[in-house]
């Protein structure tokens, strides 16, 4: 299982009239072939920016990639020509967005838009493209795919639209699929279904997935490995069982503690009774005034005086588990 995508030391800045703010700070992570990597963190911590960097979708200006490299299957995506990038997008790396409601063009039918993608990348004739699209819609468990192809987006429900998007992005057999909170905008009842389709299809076709989410339940359910981001940095990187069993970074520990108990121990059991929902005190620092040293230290419960001074680097505690924290470096959690 080799590495498909590796991001190293990626730093991104956005500037406006208030000044320049660094949105990503030396982000490093990698996605192996066929694996599902979860990217979690609070809103505004840089998850989506990281994803958009991979496809070079950061508007410049105001955005600027100041350092780092993004290697995809041995190719540096930050230096390829725009023409080559056009081939990579959709054919080799696809992306699904959060808003299924507006990710389809309202003035064209679903079939029209799906065919467009297939024909651009495969150069198929209309009839072959149609057959491929129908088959793909069938795979995302769409009832009556021929009819769906003839419909306009507003005639479909949110869950159906997101499944159409999944079908559309997987129809060219990409090697990597970036899913940016694909289920956040959906009803809870269809979230599980859409997620199951997405991950099931990727596993069957050997497609790697970078799954961006802030739902730790989703992470536990579908991911192989997890990268936790906080304020523009990757603070912990581990296999999913390892992360839930032995979270090293105080922020990760907080995230896991904040998962509500669906099934609390009975009231009369020792230490039983429903506990109040845990939340990490404070909020994510704004982009403009990020604290010096470890960016989590103002909210951290274990930190020492060094935390406000030195930025902790990402250290490999075991070959499979990395963390960026002064207190947890020894491997004691």
């Amino acid at each position, binding site marked *: 299982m080799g590495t498909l995508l590796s991001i190293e030391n990626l730093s991104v800045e956005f500037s406006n009239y208030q000044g320049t703010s660094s949105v990503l700070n030396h982000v490093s992570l990698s996605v192996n072939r066929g694996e599902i990597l979860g990217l979690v963190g609070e809103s505004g911590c840089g998850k989506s920016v990281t994803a958009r960097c991979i*496809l070079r*979708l950061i508007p410049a200006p105001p955005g600027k990639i100041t350092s780092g490299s993004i290697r995809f299957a041995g190719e540096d995506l930050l230096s390829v020509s725009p023409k080559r990038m*056009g*081939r*990579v*997008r*959709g*054919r080799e790396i*696809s*992306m699904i*967005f959060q*808003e299924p409601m*507006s*990710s*389809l*063009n*309202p*003035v*064209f*039918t679903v079939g029209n838009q799906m065919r*467009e*993608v297939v024909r*651009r*990348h495969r150069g198929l004739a209309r009839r072959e493209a149609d057959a491929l699209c129908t088959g793909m819609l069938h795979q995302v468990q769409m009832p009556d795919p021929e*009819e769906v192809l*003839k*419909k*306009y987006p*507003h005639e479909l429900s949110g869950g159906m639209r997101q499944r159409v*998007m999944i079908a*559309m*992005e997987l129809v060219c057999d990409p090697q990597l699929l970036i899913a940016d909170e694909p289920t956040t905008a959906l009803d809870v009842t269809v979230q599980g279904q859409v997620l199951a389709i997405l991950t099931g299809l990727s596993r069957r076709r050997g497609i790697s997935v970078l799954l961006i989410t802030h739902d730790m339940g989703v992470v536990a359910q579908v991911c192989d490995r997890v990268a936790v981001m906080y304020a523009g940095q990757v603070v912990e990187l581990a296999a999913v069982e390892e992360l839930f069993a032995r979270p090293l970074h105080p922020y990760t520990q907080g995230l896991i503690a904040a998962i509500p108990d669906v099934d609390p121990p009975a009231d009369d059991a020792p230490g039983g009774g429903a506990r109040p929902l845990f939340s990490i005190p404070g909020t994510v620092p704004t982009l403009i005034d990020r604290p010096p040293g470890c960016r989590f230290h103002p909210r951290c419960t274990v930190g020492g005086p060094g935390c406000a001074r030195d930025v902790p680097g990402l250290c490999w505690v075991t070959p499979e588990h990395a963390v960026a924290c002064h207190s947890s470096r020894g491997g004691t959690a």
Partner: protein
Amino acid sequence: MGIPLRQHPKWRELRLTWRLLRANPTAMAGLVILVAMGAMALAAGWLAPYDPLRLSLAERLQPPGAAHWFGTDEMGRDILTRVMYGARISLRIGFVVILIAGGIGSVLGAVAGFYGGRVDNLIMRVMDVILSFPSLVLAMALAAAMGPSLNNAILAVAFVMIPKFARMVRGEALAVKELPFIAAARVSGARNRWIIAHHILPNCLNSVIVLGTLTLGDTILIAASLSFIGLGAQPPTPEWGAMISVGRKFLMDQWWYATFPGLFILTTVTGFNILGDALRDILDPRIRR
């Protein structure tokens, strides 16, 4: 009955538009006027009682009567006939101008809005310069500079109409380009030119149709004005504006000469305006869905 499900979607949309149009009496009035004008223009050769250019000095300046419903002009030509043929010219001017101005203006606007920055500034400042002149005055100047002829008048009017479309489409493009489906298209490998042609422009089409319909009235009016001052259609072409221009001299004693072409201009322009207004409401997606 229920909703017929097995129809082609485009068909379904058209039927919905038609249903909404039917439910709107003003729109229907506009549509009826325009259909009548269009039919009259198309069938002029067949409906008109006389030849529009036939001179008959014996019958000059006859008042409206059984033989000549709208009377005759100073050369004895039948005014009803000439008004019918005039519809051909006026409608043709209107449509050609809108096609040229709408086409060029929409593309310029979409490019400006989509790329933004310098391209946007360059295109829109040129549009501002054109807009800073009153459209009739600028059209007159251009038509005069190119020489008086119908085709030059068409080009002149089209030129002054371009900024209207460019401005509106630019505004729409600014909004449309931020929608997620544009990002989705880019993620699936679409190039800028493709996105403009297949995502931005089609999403602006409703507004272009509405503006086109509304502008058609203005266009016909400006073109008639150009003919009125002798810069458009040349006599003996039966153009409404040119007819009024000559008929003006006879207005005191032969009221019918200038009045009937004028009434037709009035009716046609009104027809386009009320249809355009109604289309704006009907094609508005918020009302539609």
